[in-house]
């Protein structure tokens, strides 16, 4: 045997593998520097350098090494960093390509990988049985939150999540194709090639960097007379050259959804040493395919025997791949434990490469004679009808114990690596996600794709196909073409499900079923003994298959052991549900662009910039940024709001009301439509006048409100609450299109077309008048609307008041909003006008008892409950909600009604949402008779004010009620809802 130069790794075998020894890269693992070859995975590079111990297990902290060579890896999970901000935990070393400068760290160990304090769990393992947490931490209940959960959480979990924000970008693409092929193994390539040559639009996705699938692991397969790996490379080169084909390497199809939509995660930069700074790290594809070809292959299972988890114990197919593709041998003296023909091929290849094979142990009494003959040719000892019943070695396997199944003495073999194969589990994950039915194949111990629920077809090993020739034939048939010729000797036949010899119910050993979650055969049996009957319950009780690998190697064994313990057949016990994602997907790929500023729309009014320059503080209202208050230097929020409220009532205030929803209702039947959608009687609203309108749902409860102006016989300017505009328009459209389609009405959202400058206060008219043309403000009564000009631009001027003061709302085209605002400001500022924000607006409307829908109503409040019964047109034959209002419970007296509250101590401001009781001395739980909906300090009144919904509230005027709080019980007096100017004299300035 020749060994390559040391820099390539001591276990690299010269002349083997397909990587170029000339191209080396450097990386570190737990701070030690290593050299790899370009094209290595982290796992192959570590094995090449003789590093077998790569992690600690989740529960028992047992030393673990690399088990597999692909997406199914449960053990070799590491943290991978590129720089301080780019750190990803729980990366499968078998899937991570090495790049120059990669920093890898082991996980779940302290203080070091070789010496881990937590490994003590292994020795007290008998005290950590299945369901341990459920049984142990049951009482006292309070201790769960304060004691048990924090400690368990701190001890649990594998890698640590990074604390820095993710600096990377993620891309997103929607795509359509005639044929989506998942998997670039022989079957998938045959399908993709056939469809591509026929001119169909094809997307080919493969999770690996290099195409070929199972062809990577062999040097024997010949397709159309060339080595399989070369055939795959040539096919991919042809596909890549075609305009109708998209080839996506490093791309995992992780979810299969309705109507042939498949989600793909494409990894773009995780394998690069120096990615372009603006390159996206990953791309999420949402592919809608005419037809889907699943060529997802099969996953080799371990054998469940005693201490089958020591570093150096590996799947046979993985070792074959490491040798034939990466030129790496996982050991120097290797034992093989097989239940399946394909494990023999690994032994043959390793032996031919000069590695010593201690023995091939096969649990089958009869193995194919050609395999035995070849083993004899290669001078490999064969022990058919034997089992490996145990291993030794703490940080790496040192020996295996082999015993005949028929009984008799056991033998020890000194080894440094043990390959195993319990057979192959077809990867039916995506097929099952597509809602396709699975069928159990008892002869081969596996579930196979059954009835398809969507237009998809499974080809190759995922369909249970055992030979290369058949896989190529299936792939080609899926595309309707003739398959290429194939020659291959290796077979995937043979299987062993469930616990092997020496790991039975009476053997007190740890035989691992789920490596990642540390679930043993014993745990599965115990779960069944304790009453779990369904595999879904066994899974949750033991956590079998619930780790990040989703039980790719574990589920079938767990199922078989549960079935055996229950004395049932496997299909009777059921199969756990396959759910997306197939392998873990980063949050970045899912969240994509929708974060930070792009998380949601931000809506700003045309006046936003002026408010910013004038020191406004903003609040979020729906998607809008609204000015909250305008603090002057030295002012806190309360001082600013008090000043804004006082000055507005003494002089004037200017307010940006642009966010109000605005809908134009136009058409010959506009008034009829308004009569149906609002409670009010619109026939009697003259052109040029406004009215406060209430919209109900059919159940009779308040849905929205707003001032409506009638611009013409057939034209209404409807305003809605800021947050309610979209749903109000939706509600209107619903009735117009489906219930009242005979009405000739057109609805248009104009919320963003009109900017609204509100000027309120005794000087409002003086300030606004000089800017207005074509309209005589003095002749405008309260609740009227005129069309004219303001500052020379078209304007809809409404005399309305949400403060109780004389007030005007000037609607101008949004582009002119800021200019008009500034012109009004220039007029008003010298007179003492102030800008005010939403907080002062809220206080002043509450002083007048005006409701805010959604704050003073909660979806169970009728107009009468809110004291707005006058707004319901009594003589109208119909409106939405008319029948709801007549429901006995809504028509009955004593309902919860809106009232005012004054605290006995005028300085006490109640908490919004606080509950109200009649008798504060009653035993707990007290009977709540209502709650506070709005509460403020009113500087204009000189005392606090509140609105509340209280049972039979209007009958309680003058009563004293109580608001029990944590620190004190607050006495309140029930009052009318109007706290200021009940006669409404201020409306006239």
């Amino acid at each position, binding site marked *: 045997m020749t060994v390559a130069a040391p820099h390539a790794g001591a276990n690299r075998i010269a002349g083997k593998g397909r990587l170029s020894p000339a191209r080396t890269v450097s990386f570190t693992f737990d701070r030690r520097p290593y050299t790899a070859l370009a094209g290595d995975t982290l796992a192959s590079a570590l094995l090449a350098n003789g590093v077998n111990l790569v992690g600690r297990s989740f529960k028992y902290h047992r030393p673990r090494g690399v088990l597999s060579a692909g997406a199914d890896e449960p053990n070799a999970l590491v943290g991978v960093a590129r720089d301080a901000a780019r750190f990803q935990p729980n990366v499968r070393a078998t899937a991570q390509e090495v790049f120059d400068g990669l920093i890898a760290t082991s996980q779940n160990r302290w203080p070091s990988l070789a010496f881990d304090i937590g490994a003590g769990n292994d020795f007290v393992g008998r005290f950590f049985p299945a369901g341990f947490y459920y049984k142990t931490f049951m009482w006292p209940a309070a201790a769960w939150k304060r004691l048990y959960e924090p400690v368990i959480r701190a001890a649990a979990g594998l890698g640590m999540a990074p604390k820095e924000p993710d600096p990377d970008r993620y891309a997103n693409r929607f795509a359509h194709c005639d044929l989506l092929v998942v998997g670039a193994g022989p079957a998938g390539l045959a399908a993709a090639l056939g469809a591509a040559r026929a001119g169909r639009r094809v997307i080919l996705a493969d999770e690996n960097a290099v195409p070929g699938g199972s062809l990577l692991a062999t040097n024997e397969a010949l397709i159309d007379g060339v080595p399989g790996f070369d055939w795959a490379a040539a096919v991919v080169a042809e596909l890549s050259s075609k305009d109708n084909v998209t080839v996506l390497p490093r791309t995992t199809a992780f979810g299969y959804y309705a*109507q042939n939509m498949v989600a793909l995660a494409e990894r773009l930069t995780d394998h690069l040493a120096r990615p372009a700074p603006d390159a996206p790290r990953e791309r999420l594809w*949402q592919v809608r*395919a*005419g037809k889907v070809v699943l060529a997802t292959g099969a996953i080799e299972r371990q054998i469940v025997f005693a201490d089958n988890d020591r570093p150096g114990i590996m799947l046979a197919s993985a070792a074959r791949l490491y040798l034939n593709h990466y030129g790496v041998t996982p050991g120097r003296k290797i034992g093989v434990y097989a239940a399946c023909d394909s494990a023999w091929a690994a032994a043959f290849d390793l032996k031919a490469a000069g590695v010593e094979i201690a023995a091939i142990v096969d649990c089958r009494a009869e193995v194919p004679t050609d395999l035995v003959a070849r083993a004899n040719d290669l001078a490999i000892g064969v022990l058919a009808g034997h089992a490996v019943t145990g291993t030794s070695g703490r940080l790496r396997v040192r020996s295996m114990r082999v015993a005949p199944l028929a009984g008799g003495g056991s033998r020890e073999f000194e080894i440094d690596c043990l390959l195993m194969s319990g057979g192959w589990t077809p990867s039916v994950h995506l097929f099952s996600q597509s809602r396709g039915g699975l069928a159990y194949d008892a002869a081969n111990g596996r579930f196979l794709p059954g009835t398809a629920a969507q*237009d998809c077809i499974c080809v190759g090993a995922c369909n249970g196909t055992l030979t290369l020739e058949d896989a190529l034939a299936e792939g080609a048939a899926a595309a309707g073409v003739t398959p290429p010729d194939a020659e291959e000797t290796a077979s995937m036949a043979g299987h062993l499900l469930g616990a092997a010899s020496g790991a039975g119910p009476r053997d007190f050993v740890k035989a691992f079923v789920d490596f990642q979650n540390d679930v043993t055969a014993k745990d599965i049996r115990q779960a069944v003994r304790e009453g779990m009957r369904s595999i879904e319950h066994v899974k949750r009780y033991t956590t079998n298959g619930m780790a990040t690998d989703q039980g790719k190697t574990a589920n079938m064994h767990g199922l078989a052991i549960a079935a055996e313990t229950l004395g049932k057949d496997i299909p009777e016990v059921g199969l756990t549900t396959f759910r997306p994602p197939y392998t873990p997907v980063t949050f970045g790929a899912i969240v994509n662009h929708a974060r930070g500023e792009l998380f949601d729309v931000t809506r700003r009014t045309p006046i936003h910039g002026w408010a910013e320059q004038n020191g406004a503080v903003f609040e979020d209202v729906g998607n809008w940024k609204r000015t909250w208050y305008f603090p002057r230097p030295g002012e806190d929020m309360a001082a600013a709001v008090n000043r804004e409220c006082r000055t507005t009532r003494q002089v004037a205030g200017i307010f940006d009301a642009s966010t109000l929803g605005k809908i134009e209702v136009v058409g010959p039947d506009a008034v009829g439509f308004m009569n149906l959608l609002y409670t009010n009687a619109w026939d009697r609203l003259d052109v040029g006048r406004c009215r406060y309108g209430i919209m109900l749902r059919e159940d009779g409860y308040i849905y929205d409100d707003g001032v409506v102006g009638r611009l013409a016989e057939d034209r209404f300017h409807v305003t809605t609450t800021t947050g309610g505009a979209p749903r109000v328009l939706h509600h209107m459209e*619903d009735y117009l*299109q*489906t219930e009242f389609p005979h009405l000739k009405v057109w609805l248009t959202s104009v919320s963003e077309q009109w900017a609204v400058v509100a000027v309120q206060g005794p000087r409002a008219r003086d300030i606004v008048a000089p800017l207005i043309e074509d309209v005589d403000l003095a002749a405008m009564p309260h609740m009227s609307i005129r069309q004219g000009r303001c500052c020379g631009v078209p304007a809809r001027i409404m005399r309305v008041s949400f403060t109780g003061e004389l007030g005007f709302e000037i609607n101008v085209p949004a582009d002119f909003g800021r200019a008009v605002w500034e012109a009004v400001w220039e007029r008003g500022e010298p007179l003492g006008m102030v800008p005010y924000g939403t907080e002062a607006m809220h206080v002043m409307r509450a002083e007048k008892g005006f409701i805010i829908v959604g704050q003073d109503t909660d979806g169970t409040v009728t107009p009468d409950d809110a004291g707005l019964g006058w707004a319901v047109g009594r003589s109208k034959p119909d409106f939405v909600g008319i029948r*709801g209002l*007549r429901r006995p419970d809504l028509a009955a007296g004593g309902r919860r009604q809106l009232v005012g509250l004054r605290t006995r101590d005028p300085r006490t401001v109640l908490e919004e949402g606080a509950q109200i009781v009649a008798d504060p001395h009653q035993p707990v739980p007290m009977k709540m008779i209502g709650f506070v909906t709005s509460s403020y300090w009113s500087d204009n009144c000189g005392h606090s004010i509140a609105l509340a919904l209280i049972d039979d509230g209007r009958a309680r005027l003058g009563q004293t009620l109580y608001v029990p709080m944590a620190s004190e019980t607050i006495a309140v007096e029930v009052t009318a809802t109007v706290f200021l100017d009940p006669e409404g004299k201020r409306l006239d300035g």
Partner: protein
Amino acid sequence: MLLIHCPYCEEARPELEFRHAGEAHIARPAGIAEISDEAFEAYFFIRDNTKGIVFERWRHIHGCGRFFNAARHSVSDRFVVTYRAGEPKPELSGEQVAAAAPGGKATPANAAAGVNGKAAR
């Protein structure tokens, strides 16, 4: 994400463009103000919530804005047909229902058109 055939746009478009709007063919009673409590209960509160074929309303809210009706199988999520508001509730054949059920083979004509037809651009 479902593909939904809008009977007004006459195209299958992704679900993102639509909003579900509850059970279909529940007409607001004429003279609603005078109907009995039982009739109001039946109209406003009672819904079938069928396991199987459901008739439901959708709105192409980020498209043409129109409300329309659909027959969909609530287990398989397969659409049997979509049709315009105001059109009568279609009589579905046993074949159509079986095809939409889980395990059913056929894809409805107008949904399939979305995959290979207009929407598949």
